[in-house]
């Protein structure tokens, strides 16, 4: 990047570092990298004030490929580093890059607490439902029966739902997208606009160890039936409007669950289709738990309702505590009950 280029004139090229990208050819990470670089350009972000922080894993190599500041840390702990960075300098725009193993397994505790505290940052969880860098072991998001080097007979433990985990930890922003989706930059921009911890689960295709595991909803063919792209203030509709085969998500008031309803002649109100309110926490819980198959995959901004951030609260409280106080070290050291020695006698002060 030429330093003289004004921020508003930066292009995707300016956000690419001089490092050779070392992901497998065809990896979903390439598409995510492009989407993030596109997002940075659209946001007119300042590379000098942007920090990408990652843990360990394929996804965590991400910072090396962005022409901003970057810190590739240790396995699972990126949220803790991000906390120190952001609290030390709230001016920095902090992006976390993590994976399902890094963020949900070894670093699950830190992810939980980062979200709970509501540190103002973006958390991009690249979920490929597998350990890639260690050559293909099953992960905490792998489906039951996943055959891997560590589970040749198929995994038996149930996967966790990252977005449900995030909401459970108190997240105020939860969104979903997938690697090759053209909507990904919009989702990332919404996350960036949210003041607080913004959790984004990005389904990512590991072409070597878990190829096409998201094809059932991510494939372009039939996507309209399998993807529910949520938009604030708009009805939750999916299906093919052209063929008149429109469906919607409604509330089953008796069972207190969601249900899929047919929309006849475009009258979604008559069908009881819910209008998406990004501040509705109850519906958010239902949307992230919606079982794929019987339901489409909920994508886009699922929940967005800001609360005061951790670093703002810390600095506001500290400012109050120290108001009017002088940082006088000599006085501090001589505080409390003291006595002076002059010759041999001691006199209380």
């Amino acid at each position: 990047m030429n330093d003289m280029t004004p921020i508003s004139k930066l292009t995707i090229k300016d956000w690419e570092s001089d490092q050779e990208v070392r992901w497998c050819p065809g990896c979903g990470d390439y598409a995510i990298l492009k989407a993030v670089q596109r997002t940075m350009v659209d946001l007119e972000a300042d590379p000098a004030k942007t920090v990408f922080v990652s843990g360990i894993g394929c996804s965590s190599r991400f910072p090396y490929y962005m022409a901003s500041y970057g810190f590739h840390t240790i396995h699972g702990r990126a949220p803790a580093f991000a906390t120190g960075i952001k609290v030390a300098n709230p001016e920095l725009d902090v992006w976390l890059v993590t994976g399902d193993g890094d963020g949900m397994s070894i670093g699950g505790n830190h992810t939980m607490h980062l979200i709970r505290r509501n540190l103002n940052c973006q958390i991009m969880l690249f979920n490929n439902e597998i350990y890639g860098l260690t050559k293909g072991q099953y992960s905490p998001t792998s489906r039951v029966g996943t055959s891997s080097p560590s589970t040749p007979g198929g995994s038996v433990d149930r996967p966790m739902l990252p977005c449900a985990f995030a909401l459970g930890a108190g997240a105020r922003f939860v969104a979903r997208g997938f690697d090759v989706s053209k909507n990904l930059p919009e989702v990332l921009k919404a996350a960036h606009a949210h003041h607080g911890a913004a959790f984004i689960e990005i389904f990512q295709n590991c072409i070597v160890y878990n190829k096409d595991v998201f094809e059932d909803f991510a494939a372009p063919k039939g996507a309209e039936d399998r993807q529910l792209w949520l938009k604030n203030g708009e009805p939750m509709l999916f299906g093919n409007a052209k063929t008149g085969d429109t469906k919607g998500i409604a509330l089953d008031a008796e069972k207190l669950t969601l249900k899929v309803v047919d929309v006849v002649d475009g009258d979604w109100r008559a069908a009881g289709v819910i209008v998406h309110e990004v501040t509705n926490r109850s519906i958010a819980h239902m949307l992230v738990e919606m079982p794929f198959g019987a339901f489409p995959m909920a994508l886009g901004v699922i929940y967005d309702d800001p609360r005061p951030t951790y670093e703002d609260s810390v600095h506001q409280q500290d400012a109050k505590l120290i108001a009017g106080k002088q940082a006088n070290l000599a006085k501090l050291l001589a505080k409390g009950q003291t006595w002076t020695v002059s010759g041999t006698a001691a006199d209380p002060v």
Partner: protein
Amino acid sequence: MATILAEDEDIAASHAPQPDAVVVRFAGDSGDGMQLTGGQFTLSTALSGNDLATFPDFPAEIRAPQGTLFGVSAFQINFGSTAIDTAGDQPDVLVAMNPAALKTNVDALKPGGLIIADTGEFTKRNLEKAKYAASPIDDDSLAKWQVLAFDISALTLEAVKPFGLGNKEALRCKNMWTLGLALWMFDRERGPLIQWLKDKFAKNPVLADANIAALNAGHAYGETAEIGGHIKQQHLDPVPSAPGLYRTVTGAEAISYGLVAGAQLAGLKMFFGGYPITPASAILHNLVKLKEFGVTTFQAEDEIAAICSAIGASYAGQLGVTSSSGPGIALKGEAMGLAVMTELPLVIVNSQRGGPSTGLPTKTEQSDLYQAVYGRNGDTPLPVVAACSPSDAYECAIEAVRIAVQFMTPVMLLTDGYIANAAEPWLVPDPADHAPFPVTFLEDMNGPDGVLPYKRDAKGVRPWIKPGTPGLMHRIGGIEKAVDTGNLDYSPETHQLQTDARKEKVDGVAASIPPQEVCLGQSGGKLAVVGWGSTYGPIHQAVSRSRAKGLDVSHIHVRHIWPLPSNLGALLHSYDRVLVPEMNTGQFKTVLRDQYLVDAQPLNKVSGQPFTIAELEAAVATYFDGAPGNAGGDEVPADDTQLPSIKGVNP
């Protein structure tokens, strides 16, 4: 100990028997307020101008079941009109608030020493809990001591009657009654304590008045000679000390102040990431009160997050500090490796306790030296500094900060449970006495084609670059990196070069530290007793007493554990023998042998209790069998030739 004036020959070393120093131990149930009683007695002792050293010894349980042996909490103070270096070997006075306190502490009491016991607590039930078949006060089992037993509980209830407290609340004033008696015994002023009680109970004046009444009643009890000749009032003259302003300080306080002072000298804000752990939490509790000094504190979700957040803050341009005790330090190991690899400044405070695993959470030990010097994966050198007393912890914290920012490296500061909790008089330092060491951040491109985050200066130190600095964007991480650019590079040549560079940089710290001094005695001679950390006091006294007997023995106390002072090897080789007393199984001894091929001999103790002066004196004596003036030690080497001289090993 802060009051030591000059070289050993000038000190009236407290040779036993010691008429000018007294050791008092307060022991009671962990709910009896013994630590508070001891703390307040310490303060009035300090105010009266005596030198002092304390040893708080309390159980791991917060409120262990009442009256039990394992629930006993004790506080020992050694004070006098001479320089005091240790909390004292054997108490002269034991205050036992219940049978369990008597049982667990009486064996330490000096023969002929005084027991003050509260008979109100010597009930059948409490005697059973303390595993006494019959009351020791009534039989002759305490015959070798003086016993002063009376019903402190009843006397306290009587004294606080006018205030209408409930029975339980009224009995809580027992510790103040006892303190009042102790203050009378040693001719102490009650004024500062009465003021302290008024401040403490400002919101509840009735409690303040009740406690003051109990204090006065205890004092009057002594004065009106109701105790009948058993004890005499003693007056200990103030110790001659360097003139100046004094206060008492604990190690945890001194470390907190030292860290703040270090950050000021470096011109940095401080970020402290910590997680609750005994005995390190006190540092966090102290730092939260110092926010006006640019301190941000963060109670993390675990030990790992605590250090990682601190490294994150260092990366962002603040002084990152974390603190813990052995088990927590173990969890932080991987992150220390990252700080070494990314070459970011960081201070890690380890308040050592008995290990391994949970070990002895509230007892003291020095067994994390290997962990500090060697305990990480890979070749991961980092400087280690060890404090030897509460007041020394202030200087050591400043030194740790200096090394961290001047060498872009994590630094481990070793202290222990004894130093953290113990108090001593402190000649209040003037912050202006330290030369500032301001940090310079890189602001401009340092390479022809861009920023070189790993370009080393003459000392092998890379620049510190704050994210947010325009034009200097770069990436760092834990993977091996190319020279200068820091780009990923794990080629064989690069790893060799960078491993060597990291080692040389840390070795180079030795050039910035003062040469090792002999703190008592002279360089060269028959025996050097080499210590580090909190064994300073007992070693110093033992060497001082041995020298008074005419033995050729010197005391060397090492602050810079890694890298070691450049002259230490030659210095050790100038003695015939080297003895290394440690509260572990011989860790520093092994380091010294490895570094200098000296025949350092171990003297080890891992009972959770500090060394006594007598133990060390006896150990020193074994090296001088038959020497004039040597009374002889407990253990005498069977054959002198079995202890080859160092000079013989490595001339």
